[in-house]
């Protein structure tokens, strides 16, 4: 898939096209509250009435999180292929690229948070549900290998509702092993790795690099789990808890360290980066 003309504009301004008039207002999917989109954005896209955390694009997430002008993207040109010739995949890919201005469902790069340098990844649900194909896996591993070489901590914002991208078949399943191999390197080399689970993080992504953080944070109310409610083989008569497969449920089950509201995320990450920052080994 060659880089077409459509590809340039969104990449250059690094964001979605300007909102059409209908986007002036945004309706909260949880409580129905209608807010000025601009007000909502000032509130970090958190519903002022019920606290619902709207999904963010990868670029919005990065902008909200890192020090101004500190983000330096890497591997931006890594694009998915259609190795199986899977029905409709090529078209879907192109539409996702056009809609998001991204090559694939994750953006990686260098950044600083309150001065602390790090490598950061942010997934974009709008790109085919944030699903993990060969491009995503490659970008994640490259970032992790770079983190090991340069001894920089890694922060990953997940939003991969689709888990592995089935259109890439067994290749996509293997991204679970590939990204976890990256984490194994970080782990062996004691490079700090912080995961922030955002809405939604499921299946093959949650069952690989997303649940391997030294510290795992999550946004309030985010859907996080293995198999979708309908996909899961639920035993008859078992009543699912109301908060089944949410951030809060996962914290109760011991999988998540803290549920952190978006407003506190940047400060929390800065605090953690400071606490985990490398020191000279004590006399080793």
């Amino acid at each position, binding site marked *: 898939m060659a880089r077409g003309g459509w590809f340039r504009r969104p990449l250059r301004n690094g964001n979605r096209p300007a909102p059409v008039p209908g986007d002036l207002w945004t309706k909260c999917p949880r409580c129905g509250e209608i807010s000025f989109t601009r007000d909502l954005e000032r509130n970090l896209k958190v519903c002022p009435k019920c606290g619902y955390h709207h999904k963010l694009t990868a670029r919005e997430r990065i902008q909200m999180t890192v020090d101004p002008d500190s983000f330096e993207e890497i591997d931006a040109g890594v694009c998915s292929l259609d190795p199986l010739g899977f029905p409709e995949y090529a078209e879907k890919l192109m539409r996702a690229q056009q809609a998001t201005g991204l090559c694939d469902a994750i953006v990686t790069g260098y950044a600083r948070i309150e001065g602390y340098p790090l490598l950061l990844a942010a997934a974009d649900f709008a790109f085919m549900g944030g699903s993990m194909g060969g491009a995503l896996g490659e970008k994640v591993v490259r970032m992790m290998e770079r983190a090991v070489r340069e001894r920089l901590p890694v922060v990953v914002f997940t939003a991969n509702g689709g888990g592995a991208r089935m259109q890439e078949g067994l290749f996509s*399943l293997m991204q679970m092993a590939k990204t976890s191999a990256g984490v194994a390197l970080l782990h062996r080399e004691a490079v700090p790795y912080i995961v922030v689970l955002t809405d939604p993080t499921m299946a093959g992504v949650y069952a690989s690099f997303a649940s391997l953080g030294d510290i795992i944070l999550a946004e309030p109310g985010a859907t996080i789990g293995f198999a979708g409610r309908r996909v899961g083989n639920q035993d008859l008569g078992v009543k699912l808890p109301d908060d089944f497969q949410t951030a809060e449920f996962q914290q109760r089950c011991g999988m998540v360290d803290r549920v952190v509201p978006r407003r506190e995320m940047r400060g929390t990450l800065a605090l953690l980066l400071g606490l985990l920052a490398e020191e000279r080994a004590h006399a080793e």
Partner: protein
Amino acid sequence: MLNNPLDFEKDIAELDALIAELKQMGRDPSVRADAAQKGIDIEARIAEVEAAREERLRQIFANLTPWNQVQMARHPQRPYTLDYIRMLCDDFFELYGDRINADDPAIVGGLARFQGRPVVVLGHQKGRDLKERQQRNFGSARPAGFRKALRLMKLAEKFRKPLIIFVDTPAAEANLMAEEEGISTTIAVNLREMIMLRVPIVVAVIGEGGSGGALGIAVGDRVLMLEHAIYSVIPPEGCAAILWKDRNRAAEAAEALKLTARHALEFGLVDAIVPEPIGGAHRDPQAMAATLKAAIAEHLSALLALSPDALTQARYAKFRQMGRWQELPAVHPEVEALET
């Protein structure tokens, strides 16, 4: 003769029945006398039908569709992990428990000897009859199963025993309890730990390689697939449900997913295909075991020549390169600006 033939096995089943009938006739002296009088040679007739059967078998199995492969991989009479362990190993001593809170019978394993050498073997275990199937949760492992598997892998590493792992699962368990016990986390931890494990790991996908539930014990230095095994990111039924909102189009999905051993080998995602007896492993488990044993032995002996560092480096490189992508030239905003 098989009890529950698949659709495409029905011809064979009919020929098998005919052969059986002829053989029984041949054992009845009065029938034999009668046949002889009529100039009918029962033995020759049996030989004819047997030849036809072989021919038909060859024909059928030369033209299996991906969906037929799915059916084969799930065949209820296929040998399972414990069958292979018994046929391939001596002195098997099964170990139980994850040391956390349970023993999951959907994954079995223990110490054994393979060609005289102590090894750790483990794998998913489906059940043969209804009761065992339920007890083993149809081979769908819960978190305790993956933890037991990891415990055995660490035992292997500690005592420098190679690992032989059999994969045969529809998927990992996904009910409320599995979620509460962190099925995702457990699989992820296995993936991370297997990559760095300092002993040789030979994996054989013997039936269903069902997504994360399979991969969670399948990060091997060598991954072999039996000829009629499948390996897939999603069950074809689930894929059809997502794509076309119609689980009945599973056969089409199986085609699209390219989940056969042949595809996995072409893609470079598995290392070798282990041929099955004509008609499938279940028609001659002993022959299948012999072939599989030879394949494992060959790969294991190559791996035993490597140091732990060389092993883990190669294993990392193997999984690290998986996937297909392209890289476009880096986009420089200034250049773009000039172009516009």
